[in-house]
């Protein structure tokens, strides 16, 4: 092969490889999870148990007194761990963003069906997830300006993740004490529930709520959550 032709071929090959790399990088950038952290100011620390009974909360410019959390509750014998609905089969939670409703099944049996509030100021991710950690309570904070929120003692937190939404992003099902507008979007990406519903679900899901911090393991894998649909606003 003449030298000039070899040089031309090598140049073309380099350009092709460069283009391919660019396309591949764009692909990974496009398809990787672009959902931001659920709680922009406290994403990392919200993954830890945090009880602050002397703090006040801020949401929507209002000051709110959070519910007091008694950590000895988890040791109470009245809490039947990983209770069942009487159904037989795998536990599976569905969250329909279109109807803003959560339905928890044990096999074919419905354990719970209740209105929820998903992301309004941040998007709730869709897909199949597993609960990887549950916390009796933690602090969540984020936003800025009129959207600033600071919420200590967020109760009954069930963090979920998958291969696209990493645990560190802090998405969770949890109780919400700062609003009562369930059935309508109200969150920054998490799935808000009435406290009574979140408590009931917390003691039903896996990992089993034996302590105030519970992490899924091979022997006690997290309950499957499927989030689907699209909210109207």
């Amino acid at each position: 092969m003449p030298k000039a032709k070899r040089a031309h071929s090598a140049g073309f090959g380099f350009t092709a490889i460069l283009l391919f790399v660019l396309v591949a990088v764009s692909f990974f950038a496009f398809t990787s999870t672009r959902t931001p952290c659920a709680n922009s100011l406290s994403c990392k620390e919200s993954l830890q148990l945090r009880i602050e009974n002397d703090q006040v909360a801020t949401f929507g410019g209002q000051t709110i007194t959070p519910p007091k959390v008694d950590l000895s509750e988890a040791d109470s014998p009245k809490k039947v761990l990983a209770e069942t609905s009487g159904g037989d089969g795998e536990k599976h939670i569905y969250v329909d963003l279109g109807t803003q409703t959560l339905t928890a099944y044990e096999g074919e049996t419905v354990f719970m069906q209740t209105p929820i509030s998903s992301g309004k100021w941040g998007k709730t991710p869709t897909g199949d997830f597993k609960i990887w950690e549950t916390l009796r309570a933690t602090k969540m904070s984020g936003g800025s300006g009129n959207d600033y929120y600071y919420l200590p003692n967020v109760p009954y937190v069930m963090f979920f993740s998958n291969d696209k939404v990493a645990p560190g992003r802090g998405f969770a099902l949890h109780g919400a004490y700062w609003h009562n507008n369930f059935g309508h979007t109200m969150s920054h990406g998490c799935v808000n529930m009435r406290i009574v519903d979140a408590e009931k679900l917390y003691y039903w899901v896996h990992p089993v709520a034996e302590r105030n911090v519970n992490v899924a393991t091979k022997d006690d894998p997290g309950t499957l959550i499927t989030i689907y649909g699209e909210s109207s606003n």
Partner: protein
Amino acid sequence: MANLLTKIFVAASGLVLVAIAVLQVREPINPVRIIPSPPVVMAEASGTVTVGSPDGKSNLTMKTEKGEAQDIYTFFIQEKDGVESEIYKKNVPAGTAISIPFNTFSPDNKYLLLKEASSASVIYFVVSTNGKPFSEDLPVAEITTPFLLKYEKYNITDVTGWGGLNLVVINTDKKAGGTGPSFWFDVSSRSFIQLSTRF
């Protein structure tokens, strides 16, 4: 050589584009379709119904006595482990029904959102759970009538619940057609706040 590289490049790019398309349209399998909106508690006949607050600390009981010409609605609040106390009573013409929206309790359980519907109108109003009137001549804080007087361009389509401790969420449509803005009804000042975001 150039031909081979071109083919590899075209094939790889095609695969990448197909993968992008597949990932973008992939949706999880949807289970059953379920209730489209939060349930409302209402009495079909004389009797009582009880609903709990979202935090489990209070119960609201609505007692209905159906009559020939009018119905009597009486509301009671019971704190956890406490005694039940009457907080509000209203007589309405037969054919008018008072119901309890799913999101009736304010987040701190100080107020209740209630709905009164007849064939002619739907009225939303707020009562205090301590049984006290808002002022001497204001036993309840009515939302619908003051709103329609102030905002002639809009119809209320729904009053969904509480966006904050004393903020009721109102959704509207434009009378001229199209979706209207959302509003807060601030119970403490009995005023309306137009919002830039739709609830």
